[in-house]
């Protein structure tokens, strides 16, 4: 029993990071209808920038973190302006493939600068585990979870009350109507890429603090798909819940497969088997908007 409780707690932590990455994905999809296959690579870039600032340039962690966020904003602007804007109005497959191309460019740049070895962040939080309900949990996990929760709260408020947030929601709902009301669509697109890059970078920094980073953490981006499909491609709440649920399910399935069937590495596919089941039963997820088409 304790084994499974531990699995659930670990799953929640990983799920928190999935939620953050999924949040970036959903924000881009909601505003621009672009499916971003490079979400994991955005996480990776954020993690490496923060690593370079703290370890190689010896900047205090907090400042390094803030500079990483600024860098992410610039990266988001650059990506939107240079790569995505020429493709407005193109077919699904073209837009998907341009993000795929972007992901391999980002990945190879990171490998060029930092190699493929695992890099470890300096310890920011104490390593003494804290006991929660009889289970030892590392403080960095708790901080990670809290940070994700805070970011979600901030973005919920942002989308609900701020002018920009409302403009973004209007754009998502009907681009033409939003444009005719004087909303600058292009700015909204740029803004959504910036936000997506920022939340992904935060996810990357958290991940770096937990496990260290290597150039394969881009794979995390693939785990986002089950999470957002479960939650619904265009729902913030869905992204949050989907990430947590997938994180927990994946961890529990992996643990169960290891214990009961003796299968290793089940973690890699558990989420995708869940994904296929969700797609069959409820293709638009828990909170996604149903696409209704009429002739």
């Amino acid at each position: 029993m304790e084994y499974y409780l531990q699995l659930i707690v670990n799953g929640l932590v990983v799920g928190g990071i999935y939620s953050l990455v999924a949040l970036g994905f959903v924000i881009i999809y909601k505003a621009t209808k672009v499916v971003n296959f490079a979400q994991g690579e955005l996480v990776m870039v954020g993690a490496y920038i923060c690593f370079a600032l703290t370890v190689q340039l010896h900047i205090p962690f907090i400042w390094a973190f803030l500079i990483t966020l600024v860098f992410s904003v610039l990266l988001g602007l650059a990506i939107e302006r240079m790569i995505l804007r020429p493709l407005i109005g193109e077919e699904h497959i073209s837009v998907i493939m341009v993000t795929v191309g972007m992901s391999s460019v980002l990945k190879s740049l990171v490998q060029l600068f930092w190699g493929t070895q695992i890099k470890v962040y300096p310890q920011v939080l104490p390593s003494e585990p804290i006991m929660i309900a009889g289970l030892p949990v590392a403080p960095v996990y708790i901080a990670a979870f809290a940070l994700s929760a805070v970011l979600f709260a901030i973005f919920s408020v942002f989308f609900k009350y701020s002018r920009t947030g409302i403009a973004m929601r209007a754009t998502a709902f009907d681009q033409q109507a939003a444009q005719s009301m004087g909303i600058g669509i292009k700015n909204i697109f740029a803004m959504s890429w910036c936000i997506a890059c920022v939340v992904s970078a935060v996810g990357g920094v958290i991940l770096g603090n937990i496990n260290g980073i290597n150039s394969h953490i881009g794979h995390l981006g693939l785990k986002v798909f089950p999470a957002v499909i479960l939650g619904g491609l265009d729902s913030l709440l869905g992204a949050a819940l989907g990430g947590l649920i997938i994180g927990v399910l994946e961890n529990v399935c992996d643990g169960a497969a290891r214990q009961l069937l003796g299968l290793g590495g089940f973690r890699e596919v558990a989420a995708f088997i869940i994904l296929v089941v969700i797609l069959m039963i409820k293709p638009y997820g828990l909170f996604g908007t149903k696409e209704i088409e009429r002739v």
Partner: protein
Amino acid sequence: MQGKCGLFFTSYRGEAQIFPSGFQKTMVGLFLAALCLLPLTLGTHMISIMNLIFISVIGAVSLNLLTGVCGQISLGHGAFIGVGAYAAGQCSLHGVPFPLAILTGGLITAMVGMVFGVPSLRLKGIYLAIATLAAQLVLEYVFLHGGALTGGSNGLLLEPPKIFGFSFDTEMRMYFLLFTFAAASLIMVSNIMRSKYGRAFVSIRDFYLSAEIVGVNLFWYKLIAFGVSSFLAGVAGGLWGHYTGYISAEQFNIGLSISYLAMIIIGGLGSVIGSVFGAVFIVLLPEVLNMLANVLNAFIPDIAQYIVALREGVFGLVLILFLIFEPEGLAHRWRLVKAYWKLYPFAH
């Protein structure tokens, strides 16, 4: 179809030919003859590159039938090719003759492809892409943990193919075998595209609701598209497995699916000749990079390792540039070139 200047059709049959003019037939004949003579003049390394191109042509044209013609995005094509490789490999290992093994591999892949194609009735566009992504990752896991069936992480070792006792054990012999298969696949897909099935696929791609209203059975035709496409993918996989003599799970990862998608995008979606262009381009890209690295290495030491590290990035960059500047692919450029020469030097 637009004919040559002064080429007028008096029957539908004449217009529906693959090569409508005598000039085209002659040129294609000459090209095929040149391809038959080519290996006699090339070194082993160049022939092996040609062999990889032939295999990629089969894979690319099959994916183009599904994604370019029928509009069903598949991110699982690499895994389907893997299914074909393992299925044909297992047949060969159990003593089935080579042609039959390839055929069985194709049929098994067709069945697997159709199973993963079933969700296509409910899912469209991006949702289908993600469903096929799931298929890719699940199949990859099966390859790696398939026990005796897939050899697990050890993979399978295969003998060179044999037809009636004639062993295709050199690059040159494989060249002609793969050339035959590639040409047959191209003819097959060209013919499918101008048949009732091809027109139904195009109508589904263009607008599925109108297609259904004019009487196209969406489920049946989408399933057929998945089936035929996976069949050819399986053939490509079977040939690849027998050609390299070794099958392992890493060969059929998501990167392979993506490079096949890149081939059809760079070549031109929905175009048979585009699949060929794309396959040639993507297979040659790393070779050209290697050559470039060797040349530059003489002037700037250590640059080779950077270029090799950047290989994946160059691939991504090429893909991005193509999508931005040449979204219709090389096939479109080819049409423009042909149109230019058609009227040259009098543009009227």
